């Protein structure tokens, strides 16, 4: 899986979770850039990401990822 593919699939997940088709993800996108992305929605987002990529995000990384780029790193790392 390439980083572009990860971003493509991630964009879909974000659009569904936040019900907003205009979302475009960048490496540097953070929760500040998406209106509804609070700590509660973060949980749903992680569950949806885990389902999409068939991975389990380790506890230590769930809340420490600082932007979408880091989220992609974790996905690539965990799906090796």
């Amino acid at each position, binding site marked *: 899986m390439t980083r572009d593919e990860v971003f493509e699939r991630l964009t879909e997940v974000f659009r569904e*979770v936040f*019900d907003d088709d205009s979302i475009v993800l960048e490496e540097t996108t953070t929760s500040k850039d998406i209106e509804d992305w609070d700590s*509660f929605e973060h949980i749903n987002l992680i*569950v949806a990401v885990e*389902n999409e990529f068939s991975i389990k995000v380790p*506890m230590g990384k769930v809340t420490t990822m600082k932007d979408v780029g880091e989220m992609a790193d974790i996905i690539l790392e965990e799906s090796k």
Partner: protein
Amino acid sequence: MKELEYPFDGDEIIKKKKGIKKVLLGQEGLMPLKIAVLGGATTNDIVKVTELFLLDNKIKPIFYESEYNRYYEDVMFENEELEEFKPEIIFFCTCNRNITAWPDVTDGLPDIEKKLDYEYLRLEEMWNRTAEKYRCPIIQNNFEYPFYRLLGNRDSWDKRGRVNFICRLNGKINEYAENHSNFFVHDINYESASYGLEKWSDPFYWHMYKYALCVPAIPYFSFNVANIIKSVMGRNKKVLMLDMDNTLWGGVIGDDGEDNIEIGQETPIGQTYSEFQEYVKSLKNIGVLLAVNSKNDEATALKGLERPDSVLKSDDFVIKKINWMPKSENLVSAAEELNLLPESVVFADDNPAEREIVRSNVPGAAVPEIGDRPESFIRIIDRSGFFEVTNFSEDDISRNRMYADNVKRSVSRNAFTDYGEYLKSLEMKGEIQHFVSAYMSRISQLTNKSNQFNLTTKRYTQSEIEEAEKDDGYITLYGKLDDKFGSNGVVSVVIGQIREKECHIDLWIMSCRVLKRDMEYAMMDALVKECMKRGISRIRGYYYPTAKNAMVRDLYGELGFEKLSEDPDGNTVWDFEIKDDYIRKNRYIEV
């Protein structure tokens, strides 16, 4: 909505809940309901997903959510916010993580009893206080099993084991439920087992987010809570309508003949259908009306039910539509004959094409995806919660008989050319009285599920009804109707509020199974009589239109009320002056 029907895809619901909610909010006729969710763990997504399932039942919840793990404090101490919120349902969303006094292997038996009492009495005190202060239905989670067993299998029977402790605590919760009618147990112990305890209790979600269950299990949890709520609010389905070939038995009776269909103990498929028929028969015993909707030659199809090994017999069904008409039309006409709305029907058919015809032509009717494997039928119908039992009255047990009696009445009606003669022949006896405790659960049930003959569609909880019964400022009347074919049970309820020598009819409902029997006249007579006794000379009637109650739009006019006003939405206010020479309107019921 298809996405929210069992068996659903929980992950999809979690992921798309924002979009789903938007669509559901577009529905008309939503009933607002204030629900306080008092949690012992994070409840954020539980609330959001429960909202979806309630909206799907046309209930629009307004939530109060406690701060994290403040369920106990929220009701035990002064709480202006909650008091002002005036909850109509309080849901204690607790879990085994809230247990603090777990038994220890070094404890003696008396210590363990003390711990059990501590955990239980704390809950009991909380429920009692809630019931007294908020007077609304309470929903309480029981406890799920712990996710590890220190003593292994011994944990189950040894009083020092946590599994044992949970079982005993749940037993005490059940006992409380048995003795308190407005208290409902949300059985997460069963749900977590059904989902898979190991996944359900994944500690990741507790330590990470303080969720007592794994996030993917939330839709299953919320679905079950919503089922309790919609049942308490009278939104249960009433009829199970079944196809015959390959639904009640294996094979096609018209082709195979009654001797060759699969039912009974000879083959695995036959056994499966027998088990399904037994399940259907027990639904009848909890008050679900059974009906048949089958494309067949009637005489041939009925031979299937005449087989000695058929659990279901022809007279188990209150109505049978066996013909070559489209099943959607059969469903609508059957509902009409039963004086019910099509949306109170659940239609079960193994054939996906038939399901689709009904689904697309009868909006509101439930059409579960039972598939074509008979071994799945019970699970899918059962877990869907169409008939979730919260209040279980005598009336539920005898409902099938009452509807069957009604069908007999209509046969007898056809023999009379004069309707008055027919009514006379019924030898009707009415009992119209001030509310009594024996009928409270039936009165509250009727209040919440009557939609057609319902002037104001005001919903009451059982405790509000009990309050009205005790309050001198109210006139409360229930009406029970018997005739030569049997008892119809309690069929009508009136609640009038007395303000300045006027009686305002807050609620007037009647079960549609006794329409056109003079019962509304008998109720009016009784209300007038009670008003006269109390020196009240005017009655005010109110009609608030809904999608379902058009049949009573002119009721007050017919009863001789004068229309005082009508607003653009069609809400009308009526006035009736009680004169000394009031003439009884009911002519056929002996009261």
